[in-house]
């Protein structure tokens, strides 16, 4: 495989959008192309993450219409769907095609208009990424799945549920602190001084998960220009290299051995580390899939950054803040920045690249700039997992 670099990045404001999905995606893509200094003719293929466009705007096959909206000509345009991990699946597939030598330059990203659906309909359509035959009739929701995981975490590691809830709340406090500093975040200038008690005392969505344990529904898009590494310096002095990628699949909840140790995530992260020739100790920053506070803890343990059952304490101790063992979600994460599900994986990569360029918002920038960063994106109830490891220099051969 050839090395692949990111040479341009784009990101719309997350929150409520009046524009349609294709407009949001085109905005993000054109930003990325302008950032890279490339033209329409340079783009050979498009990979778009979009989870629920049919339910949001009655649009299937959105990738083709996005290519058309950008006047990219008859190039191959493919929608990638892995629920909330859709954009990471798109980026991984795009990077494989470039790595394989089929294309030199492609667009990869994602888009979603979930906030516009409203809570009831959005919850219904999000729950479609649960196992429809067995979890559908139960009326399970994603907050429900992670509430079940939180109760099991409490039991497995013998942490009283009330104590665990306080530690979970510290994830929301941290991520909102950084989301409030991020101008593109849904909660920019909001909830920045959230307290643990606020999270615990907000209303239950699915016991013990409260509203402030949850990420919001969001509209937004993010896109990247991927380029063969050998050609990247033609366009930018600061290409960011894709060093390793992983993808894993899970299944119905009932077939999982342990909700708190998702095999799909463990396997995907291992693949990415192996490909990059790196281990968790080498990574300087993370953007992980904090769809719910407990989800961030499970992610950190499954990826190998903390021992099983220790991420809760570590987070409450500030080990995942700037200056701690490993800064996590300095963009605000899904909780503070918002979660337009089909766009999230690209947004995570966007903020790793921003950090590596030293362009993260004041208060969120890690100093010195990170050498290695990693994203973690989760779709469904551990059904699709993706990891991408990025670096400021090429993979060591």
């Amino acid at each position, binding site marked *: 495989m050839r090395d692949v670099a990111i040479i341009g990045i784009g990101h719309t404001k997350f929150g409520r959008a009046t524009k349609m999905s294709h407009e949001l995606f085109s905005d993000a893509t054109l930003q990325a192309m302008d950032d890279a200094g490339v033209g329409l003719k340079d783009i050979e293929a498009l990979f778009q993450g979009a989870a629920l466009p049919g339910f949001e705007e009655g649009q299937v096959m959105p990738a083709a219409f996005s290519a058309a909206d950008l006047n990219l000509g008859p190039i191959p345009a493919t929608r990638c769907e892995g629920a909330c991990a859709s954009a990471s699946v798109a980026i991984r597939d795009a990077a494989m095609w470039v790595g394989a030598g089929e294309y030199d330059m492609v667009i990869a990203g994602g888009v979603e208009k979930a906030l516009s659906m409203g809570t*009831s309909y959005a919850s*219904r359509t999000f729950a479609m990424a649960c196992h429809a035959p067995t979890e559908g009739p139960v*009326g*399970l929701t994603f*907050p429900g799945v992670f509430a*079940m995981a939180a*109760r099991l975490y409490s039991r497995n590691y013998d942490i009283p549920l009330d104590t665990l809830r306080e530690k979970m709340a510290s994830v929301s406090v941290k991520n909102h602190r950084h989301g409030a500093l991020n101008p593109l975040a849904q909660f920019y200038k909001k909830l920045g001084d959230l307290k643990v008690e606020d999270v615990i005392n907000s209303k239950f969505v*699915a016991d013990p998960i409260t509203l402030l344990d949850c990420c919001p529904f969001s509209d937004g898009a993010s896109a990247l220009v991927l380029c063969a590494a050998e050609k990247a310096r033609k366009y930018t002095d600061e290409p960011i290299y894709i060093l390793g990628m992983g993808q894993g699949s899970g299944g119905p909840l*009932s*077939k999982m051995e342990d909700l708190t140790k998702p095999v799909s995530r463990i396997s995907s992260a291992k693949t990415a580390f192996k490909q990059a020739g790196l281990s968790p100790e080498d990574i300087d920053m993370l953007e992980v899939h904090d769809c719910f506070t407990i989800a961030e803890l499970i992610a950190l343990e499954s990826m190998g950054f903390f021992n099983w059952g220790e991420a809760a304490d570590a987070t409450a101790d500030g080990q995942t803040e700037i200056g701690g063992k490993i800064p996590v979600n300095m963009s605000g994460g899904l909780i503070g920045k918002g979660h337009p599900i089909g766009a999230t994986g690209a947004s995570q990569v966007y903020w790793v690249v921003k950090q590596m360029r030293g362009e993260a918002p004041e208060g969120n920038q890690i100093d010195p700039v990170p050498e290695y960063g990693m994203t973690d994106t989760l779709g469904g109830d551990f059904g699709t997992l993706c990891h991408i490891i990025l670096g400021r220099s090429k993979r060591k051969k």
Partner: protein
Amino acid sequence: MEKELREYTVLTHAEYEEGIKEGKLLGLRCASCERITCHPMPVCQWCGGRSLERTELSGEGELTTFTVIRVPPEGFEDDVPYIPCLVKTKEGPCVVGRLDYDAERASQVLISKQVKMSGAYTHKGDKFSGGTHTCPVFVVVE
């Protein structure tokens, strides 16, 4: 021709749901590893074995975890609050269902309690669900 038309499903999902409605938790016994697969799959959920035979589970097990849904998806408004649960059956496989218990009294002490299947819950479905679907309901064995 017969070979080309071969199907691999020993127990269909519809038959599994029908069983639940009749108070039976149906599964498949694997000839290779002798373990039980439930809900049904075309291959053994443990070893991938292809030689499967229908069997009935006891419906007894242990409550692995649960939650109380307060904010429902569209179509479940009338059920709130309700308790989805994960049960590890005596025979080995886990099953997702509903727990029949007072939602306002449901607390962490329920976890690891013995439960047994007590009935079925059939959701009316919506235009996305391909008809109605049924899940098992469990009660705590006091």
